[in-house]
């Protein structure tokens, strides 16, 4: 699957759920199953502190593709991280830089999730793109 297809799959999965409660249940489920972040990467350098919750992000390059690890103290945010990773983990830096996280707005979670200054998600997206740009530059 291309990165665009992966993103579309996320959008389709959530748009198929009519009920807001079920959508949130699904996100919470994703949050619970997000692979644990290695403690060594849970550093202040990898931390983005929001007013409401905190997120951590670590990125590395493996065989030309981005390998992402992340965590949050809030479960719904963890779920959103899992969704972000569904799209961006394993992407090439070029794909990641070229792909805006449209799914956040399109899966109907409400504006409080897309206006994500408080929960650190926006900063996380920015950070993924920044890593992608750096990896891209390193590859040249």
């Amino acid at each position, binding site marked *: 699957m291309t990165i665009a297809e992966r993103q579309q799959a996320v959008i389709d999965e959530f748009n198929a759920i009519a009920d*807001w*409660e079920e959508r*949130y*249940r699904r996100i*919470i489920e994703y949050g619970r199953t997000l692979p644990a972040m290695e403690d060594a990467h849970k550093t202040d350098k990898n931390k983005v502190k929001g*007013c*409401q*919750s*905190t997120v951590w992000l670590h990125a590395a390059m493996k065989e030309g593709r981005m390998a992402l690890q992340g965590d949050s*103290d*809030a*479960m*719904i*945010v963890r779920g959103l991280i899992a969704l972000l990773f569904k799209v961006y983990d394993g992407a090439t830096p070029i794909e990641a830089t070229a792909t805006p996280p449209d799914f956040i707005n399109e899966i109907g979670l*409400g504006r*409080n*999730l897309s206006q994500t200054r*408080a*929960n650190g998600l926006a900063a996380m997206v920015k950070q993924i793109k920044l890593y992608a740009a750096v990896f891209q530059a390193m590859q040249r």
Partner: protein
Amino acid sequence: MPQLQTFDVASIRAEFPILAREVHGRPLVYLDNAASAQKPRVVIDTLRDVYEREYSNVHRAAHELSAATTERFEAARRTVQRFLNAPEDRECIFVRGTTEAINLVSNSWGRANLKPGDEILITAMEHHSNIVPWQMICQQTGAKLVVAPMDQTGTLLMPEFEKRLSPRTKLLACVHVSNALGTINPIAEMARRAKAVGAVVLVDGAQAVPHSRIDVQALGVDFYAFSGHKVYGPSGIGVLWGRAELLEAMPPWQGGGEMIKSVSFEKTTYAGLPHRFEAGTPNIADSIALGAALEYVSKLGLDAIEAYEHELLQYATAQVAQIKGLRVIGTSPRKAGVLGFVLDGIHAADAGMILDQQGIAVRVGQHCAEPVMDFFKVQATIRASFAFYNTRAEVDALVAGIRKVQELFS
């Protein structure tokens, strides 16, 4: 409850247009009043009326419009004076809000009066806006910031407070009602003790003004600051009241138009009160609309508001006490407006998102009071905060909403 019979919430709600709207397909349950209160029609209409009929710059009355606007602007100042029971209207300075009021005092009074070895006493329950300006002025003057602790209910420890008062204490800067905990501080008593050691007393009244009658003379304080938007007025306007004697001795903070008497390149003499502290064109329309808001709440009656809200907060506290896994943060015997809590095993941010989906607006986070969160060893709290337009039915909706949160995360 006799007060409840005289307090007609249904007709009051009808005066707040926004309360009729829906959020996510549910009726809005607005419980974020401590962050900002909604506006009654009279405030919205006043803003419109100023701009549609009588708007011009103030204090430059070469024409009819300016004279009329100036009259309304200064009438609003007199409304503020009456609202606070201030001795004189020129003691009421229009500012952007509580934060600017505190920064004005720290920059003007603080810079002129503080020296190394002096102490500024605050409490452990301050909002960042009553911590950071003092830290900044301490860095510049060599004065020291001293903190009076609270107990596990979020009540100030009076003996500890007294221990920290000494002739070195030049200023007591304290919150009247805590935004994170709801605690009402015994300001009159604190001021009396601070005065006994010769300290000047500033009160952050942002959370007190919407909930109870304020009489700055009875409180015996020197400065009192509040924000318009929390007392049903517009955002971007607030008031610093200060005793004339102190304000007159203070150097201006910002320079510009309005605040001068005469200017030459050699020497400028400053205007008297209040204009000396209102450099530049003021926030004219919002000042006038703040006056309308204060008249509105005064007409409802602050004693009736206080009684109604007290009863509502007690009801809410009793209702949430029945929820397993919920812990209230801030259980002081004297509280106003605020119900802060945490849920076992559920992050406040998660709870806030699920409550929002149900049309319930609360604030989650640290409430610009990180030291308070640290004291209670919580990362963040969920805060429901009440106004006189809230109802028992809305408290019930909150309780049902919290149970839904717990169900989703179980």
